[in-house]
């Protein structure tokens, strides 16, 4: 039985580069609002075309990055673990995301104060395991907290290249046993973990990684990603996936692309709990 994929997006009405919190951002360069809207709409329409039910957040003035809904939190069944943004300029987003999640019937929970955690930007299920990036935005200890809270195995991976500051900029699970990744964003430990845990790993080259090709949205057997990654497209094709390249250059200016602009609400294709909903009953373990 297949259910309709559901994805949360937020129109880029107030999107722009108003601060610099990663190496991609430059307030001097700025963005083109018309082109941003066009690129965002193209992504939206592509997802709808793929059969996705896209839900829209109300954009908010003063919160330019609200457009990057992947960072809202982590969805696990009917649970929504709200992000705790590292940078003050994004912390105002949480109230809006939480209000939306409550209204949609999610059980909303936050990490304890003092933790940094940036949602699906840094926490991606591949099979039963939650792969979690840390160092630039999320903390390793926050991932441990989540693992205990949800009763799932969590493997924190250190991110070592500031250009790939979220896990979803350098790692994208395709299925429960396959993923794409850019090795240069991880250290030897991280690479060993990924190669040891995931059966099929497609390596993305450095040139294609900087065009945000790992920041992809997987819908069934289709991978929606930034254009400029012909080698990856071929590798995906060999694995039986279709690529849908899109031009999302306006969002790369802020350090995001297709994946960052979406939050999968019914479980990523690669998450085991999507097919076994009983797995997504949080153990609600005691956490310190």
């Amino acid at each position, binding site marked *: 039985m297949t259910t309709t994929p559901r994805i949360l997006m937020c129109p880029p009405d107030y999107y722009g580069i108003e601060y610099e919190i990663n190496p991609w951002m430059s307030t001097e360069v700025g963005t083109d609002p018309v082109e941003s809207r066009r690129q965002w709409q193209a992504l939206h329409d592509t997802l709808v075309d793929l059969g996705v039910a896209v839900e829209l957040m109300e954009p908010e003035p003063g919160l330019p990055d609200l457009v990057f809904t992947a960072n809202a939190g982590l969805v696990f069944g009917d649970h929504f673990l709200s992000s705790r943004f590292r940078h003050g300029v994004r912390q105002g987003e949480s109230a809006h995301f939480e209000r939306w999640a409550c209204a949609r019937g999610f059980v909303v929970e936050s990490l304890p104060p003092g933790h940094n955690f940036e949602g699906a930007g840094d926490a991606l299920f591949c099979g039963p395991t939650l792969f979690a990036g840390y160092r630039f935005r999320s*903390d390793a200890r926050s991932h441990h907290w989540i693992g205990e809270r949800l009763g799932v195995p969590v493997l924190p991976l250190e991110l070592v290249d500031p250009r790939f500051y979220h896990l979803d900029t350098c790692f994208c699970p395709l299925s429960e046993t396959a993923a794409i990744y850019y090795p240069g964003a991880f250290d030897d430990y991280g690479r060993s973990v990924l190669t040891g845990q995931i059966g099929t790993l497609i390596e993305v080259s450095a040139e294609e990684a900087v065009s945000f090709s790992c920041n992809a949205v997987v819908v069934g057997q289709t991978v929606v990603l930034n254009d400029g990654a012909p080698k990856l497209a071929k590798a995906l094709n060999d694995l039986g996936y279709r690529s849908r390249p899109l031009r999302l250059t306006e969002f790369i200016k802020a350090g995001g692309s297709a994946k960052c602009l979406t939050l999968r609400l019914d479980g990523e294709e690669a998450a085991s709990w999507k097919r076994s909903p009983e797995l997504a009953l949080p153990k609600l373990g005691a956490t310190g």
Partner: protein
Amino acid sequence: MPLDDRREAHSTGPDPGVIEEVEVRGHIVDSLLLPKVLDRILQMGGTFEILECTIGARRVDPSHARIAIRADDAASLDQILGDLVEHGATPVNPEDAKVEPADIAGAFPDGFYSTTNQRTQVRINGRWIDVADQEMDCGIVVDPATNSPRCVPMIDVTVGMPIVVGHAGIRVVPTERSREASFFSFMNSGVSSEKPKAAKLIGVAESMRATRAAGKKILLVGGPAIVHTGSAPHVAQLIREGWVQTLFAGNALATHDIEQAIYGTSLGVSLEEGEAIEHGHEHHLRTINTIRRKGGIKAAVDAGLIRSGIMYECIKNGVDVVLAGSVRDDGPLPEVISDAIQAQALMRKSVKDVGFALMIATALHSIATGNLLPAWVKVVCVDINPATVTKLSDRGTFQTVGLVTDVEPFLRSLAGLLCNPSL
């Protein structure tokens, strides 16, 4: 000397430095976070000890490890901790030790922490700090100016001295046996007369070489049987060649040794012929009388009255000598300290920097010295009576290695090995 000996000698005491404990939890095995954290500690110049490690049984079960990290100084430790926190390690924060000012002199406050001879650390202002002057059956005083803890005997307590009470914020770090000299691991099976002596003897000699190479002192605690058995010349040779820096003995060893130097007898028995000589029994008291008339052993050596023997070599070679008296002493010799508390205090002072203690043919002096030594100082006890070694171990000096043998062949062979390595 071989490099191995040097390394071994350096491991005789606790490493200097500061310590902090951290905890890592979660899927630290599959995520390689545990090996990563341990690698980071070493890469940053620290060392670690895994105090506790529980591995989750199923894939979803988290694992847990508690790790003690040691660094050379607080700044290095902070740097390591700062890095490890990034990888999800969290400092374990137990309580600081509780301190109470001494209310009366010469006694601890009720509830004082009673020490062992093992390496101990006290937590002060969130940091584990090694206790100095480690000694069993003491209390711990914390210097208010430097916040450094050290062992203090009951009798030295003064009013207002900050004394550690209770057990919070105190931990004992057992001596790492695996890092000890192979000789000591080889000889860990206790006391028996039915053991091969040669290997043990070589082990003693190697430990003494390593101790001297490490710049530590060798302490000899000797009983009068050394002289009675005709071993004084061997000990004198060891002293002359720099194998003894400190001597603890009583009135008897010194008196018999000097009697031999002056009369060639020990308690009137000729050490050359092995027979009592006429009026020989008087030699003992006449020796004491002569030395007392001269004003002391040193004065007698300076005057040329004593020209050989253990005490002569001690004076000539600047050996730190503590002669502790007893109620049965004749005389005693002027250098003998008849106030037991004063003698104990001097011995306590003299055991600092001792890395190896050789206890020969004396029960009470050996036990008294064992009480003062930290557990990482190697102790070899040589006695014809197995009970002497057992007594020493039973009173807490568990690191003692025993050799049940006649002391003369032992000392002759030891002097032969150390003073003539080619033999």
